């Protein structure tokens, strides 16, 4: 944020102020520079073009074919893979939209929790107190473990017979026979809960940095005006956090829509196919059953949904000149 500001503020200054010695002798430098920047960029651009730009286009091309990796013929079928996804009695329809629904449910519950709970934690930690850095590290720690580790670990803790979670629930006098990984809605609670546990620290750390960027004078001014803690939160903290909030919302949204590993390892998509997410379905269709045309079409439909949601987030957090 600071850098962006500096940069924006710096640009006109650079134009206005007479440039030190460099400018006059910079004809030579400039001539050099014609090729030089591209030489610096070349190694990255090779990777970027080959494994990001080309695949984006190639994927669209694949989605217009019946593309079975294991067969020599890949007939062009136009938009058939897409129309199939929107035809209720087609092969892919129920599996795909079932998985979209699973992703939707997961996103609907995990995103709000991952926005609010880490903010609460960050607010508790905003002021200096003994042990603050230790707490910050502990909350962040699960995030450095991969989804494979946390998946296998929580599969054990959530085991319906011998798991720690059911055991302690029993000690508290609560039901101790919940099938966390094989029945809904318990499986959703498990998937969302584990994800919150896993990534809460990541969001909290970003919030915390954002909170520390809000000038203390703003709070002081608000207090002078007689604002209580809640009013300070609404009128100082939230507006001050706006760029951070939009970043966290966007990254959390993208991560949730891309959920795969938790479901793959904790519930294997079950019971039935209920917790099989869109990513799970796409990967399985394309890379297990090798119906790549269909899977590519699914990935573009999912992308359109995600882009629409991202735009909505941008719109919600847009800079408003006149609040209210």
């Amino acid at each position, binding site marked *: 944020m*600071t*850098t962006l500001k*500096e940069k924006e503020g710096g640009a006109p200054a*650079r134009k206005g102020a007479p440039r*030190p010695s*460099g400018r006059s002798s910079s004809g030579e430098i400039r001539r*050099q*520079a*014609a090729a030089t*920047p591209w030489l*610096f*960029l070349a*190694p*990255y*651009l090779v*990777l970027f073009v*080959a*494994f*990001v730009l080309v*695949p984006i286009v*190639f994927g669209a091309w694949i989605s217009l074919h019946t593309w079975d*990796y294991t067969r020599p013929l890949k007939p062009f079928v136009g938009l058939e893979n897409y129309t199939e996804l929107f035809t209720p009695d087609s092969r892919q329809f129920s599996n795909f939209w079932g998985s979209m629904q699973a992703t939707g449910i997961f996103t609907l519950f995990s995103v709000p929790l991952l926005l609010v709970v880490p903010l609460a*934690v960050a607010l*508790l930690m905003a002021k200096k107190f003994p042990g603050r850095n230790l*707490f910050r590290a502990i909350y962040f*720690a*699960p995030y*450095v*473990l*991969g*989804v*494979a*580790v946390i998946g*296998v*670990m929580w*599969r*054990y803790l959530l085991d319906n017979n*011998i798991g*720690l979670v059911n*055991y302690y629930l029993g000690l508290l006098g609560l039901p101790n026979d919940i099938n966390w990984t094989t029945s809904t809605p318990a499986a959703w609670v498990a998937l969302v809960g584990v994800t919150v546990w896993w990534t809460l*620290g990541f969001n909290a*750390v970003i919030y*915390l940095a*954002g909170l520390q960027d809000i000038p203390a004078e703003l709070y002081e001014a608000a207090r002078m005006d007689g604002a209580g803690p809640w009013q300070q939160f609404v009128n100082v903290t939230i507006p001050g956090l706006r*760029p*951070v909030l939009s*970043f966290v919302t966007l990254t959390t949204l*993208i991560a949730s829509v*891309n959920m795969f590993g938790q479901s*793959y390892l904790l519930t294997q998509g079950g019971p039935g196919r209920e917790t099989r997410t*869109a990513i799970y379905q*796409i*990967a399985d269709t*394309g*890379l297990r059953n090798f119906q790549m045309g269909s899977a*590519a079409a699914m*990935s573009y439909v*999912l*992308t359109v949904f995600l882009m629409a949601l*991202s735009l909505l987030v941008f719109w919600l957090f847009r800079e408003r000149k006149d609040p209210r």
Partner: protein
Amino acid sequence: MSSTVETRTARTAEPSAKQARKLQPGTLLKIVLLALVALIFISPVIFMIVTSFKSRADATSIPPSWIPNPFSLDAYKELLAPGTNTPILRWFANSMLAAILHSALVVVTASMAAYPLARMNFRGKKIVFAVIVATLLVPPVILVIPNYLLVSELGWLNSLVAIIVPTAASAFGVFFMRQFFISLPDDLEEAARIDGANRFQMFTRIILPLAKPAMATLALLAFLGNWNDFLWPVYVLFTPEVQTLPPGLSTLQSANAVRYDLLMAGAVVASVPVLALFVFLQRFIIEGVSRSGVKG
């Protein structure tokens, strides 16, 4: 359990006993609350470690115990025994090799690309940067199918190259390094220019030495990302000898559904390097993450 809570709070308050005396009741309450939450965050990991040192029967006994009885290395011995179809040492070596090479590739290519984007003026600069940043919003799933075919065409399927190279085109890395290079003073290269240095020398002799902390942070984040990546390796590495730890753990899970002693030992093996990195370098990791957010 409650005793653990007390020791934890006591321990965190202890080093600053003087301050503790001055603490207001509100702050104390806050610390107790945060300590309780911290317990939820740390105890699953501790239980994972504890279970990895349990015997097969002890790992599934009720009530669950927090102390292995007997203390047993059987799970590790069984995992490390030669001739299994779950060669965890091999997975570990593969993960290490892939993550180090991937991380190096990301840091080199991203720093080089970020330099002209931050500190040179040339035609096409804005477009190149805009396209790179725009791909941050492209969900990776869209790349999975076409990249699978590309990797297969290149003969990289079922080899470590498949998880080292294609994911190294890190838009985040370029963005991150560019932000850092922009923050350096404008006239840094001036002296070198007068001495007749070319752009490449300015980059390697002046800019890079200053960028070490940023590069270390990016290297760490790239290492962690590659070490923990799951979906892509699960589908492009299929034989045990070439797998890395994440798909390996998944294989281990499907082969030994309720051998929780084995599974937890495997999970510990996969966690040790990243937890060690985190303990020693957490400042870099946390600062890297928070900086990326604030500047986003």
